[in-house]
């Protein structure tokens, strides 16, 4: 079923329930669904597992959810951008699953593609291989990695058409297209919704079958930082 609805940001985050696993797009703030993240900080949920490359910065973006005690676990590759992550982890109040960035990305793609697991050479022989199964294939050692999936994905694109097809902008693409494929419910935050037929069929990066709902962006990243453009 696929009737992507243009909905209000509060309706979008109302799909997030306590104990859910949520994917959030973006590489730092670049390509991050800032408007939906803001709405999530005002939404009463707890015990969330966040799958995102970073957990925002201290007191910013997803970092606010951490401070609010809404997070049970974070899965990503670079939590260094928010030093509070270590504090919560060391106090036993946050679980972490740290993955090499390429393994993280491939695991999300695998989740969206119905792959039950994959073998990678990345991290073999390192501390991040601890507890993971290894296997020799054609004379080389590989690690078995599992797919990542989520209940809800909150992603950021540049434009959608009314069908829900998405295009991205420069390096704001990053994890967004793969997260769109790996969650049961997918909301895309966009700057603009154009008529169907206005996007080049050869250039659509996320076909509409992955997208359940669209939200217009309010908070956007500019040269001067995050700016509120108003509703």
């Amino acid at each position: 079923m696929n009737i992507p609805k243009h909905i209000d940001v509060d309706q979008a985050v109302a799909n997030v329930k306590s104990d859910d696993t949520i994917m959030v797009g973006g590489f730092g703030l670049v390509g991050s669904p800032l408007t939906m993240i803001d709405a999530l900080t005002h939404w009463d949920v707890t015990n969330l597992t966040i799958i995102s490359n970073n957990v925002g910065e201290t007191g910013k973006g997803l970092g606010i959810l951490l401070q609010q005690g809404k997070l049970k676990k974070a899965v990503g590759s670079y939590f260094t951008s928010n030093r509070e992550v270590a504090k919560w982890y060391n106090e036993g109040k946050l679980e972490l699953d740290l993955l090499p960035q390429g393994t993280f990305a491939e695991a999300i793609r695998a989740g969206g593609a119905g792959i039950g697991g994959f073998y990678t050479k990345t991290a073999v022989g390192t501390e991040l291989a601890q507890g993971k199964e290894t296997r020799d294939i054609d004379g080389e050692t590989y690690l078995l990695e599992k797919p990542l999936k989520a209940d809800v994905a909150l992603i950021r694109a540049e434009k959608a058409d009314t069908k829900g097809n998405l295009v991205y902008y420069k390096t704001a693409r990053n994890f967004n297209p793969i997260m769109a494929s790996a969650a049961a419910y997918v909301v895309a935050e966009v700057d603009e919704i154009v008529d169907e037929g206005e996007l080049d069929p050869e250039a659509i990066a996320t076909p509409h079958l992955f997208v359940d709902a669209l939200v217009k962006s309010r908070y956007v990243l500019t040269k001067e930082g995050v700016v509120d453009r108003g509703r």
Partner: protein
Amino acid sequence: MAGKERIAQRAAQDLEPFSIINLGIGIPTMVADYLDKDNYYLHTENGLLGVTSVEEENIDPLLVNAGKLPVGEAVGASYFHSADSFAMIRGGHVDVAILGALQIDAAGRVANWAIPGKDIIGVGGAMDLLVGAKKILITTNHVSKDGSPKIVEECTYPITSTRRADVIITDLAVFRWIHDGYVLTDLLGDATLQEIAEKTTASYRVSDKLYEKGSTK
């Protein structure tokens, strides 16, 4: 209406609007003729979401469906490579796959890719679709050309998947998998309960609704 058209039309009625649908070769392809193109999204595994029919004069030799037949491009269509296309299928992003069958058995298993004793040299996307689509709808003549039942107790042809078909639509009847087996839910055309019983060797239940209506339509 001939049998194949009846099957295709009945299958079209079984689809929820705004579904993402993949059509196999043969009768499944004909289902498109009975769909309002604005309300359904057709996916073809060779790399297009947004398949439409095409007029003879607009045929583009580089725009085809999985049966290598010319098709058109819907407004809002998109193209992608084969690995991305099958990621959609395997990953559960296609709502319905409509497929043909050589046999379907009482356990819901479908055989539609190989014939015993003949060369097994092609499978295409059938196994991926059967495993990955959220709903499997089989469209087939009720019996094969030699009159033998296609809905059988246990497949004698090589199966395509262990995943069961949800709905079977033939020229005579509709079966739906309910709880632990198929239920005959509809008789099509002039078919009778007795005719279905004679032409079906699989065990199945009959919907109470049909008994209430009596054995003829």
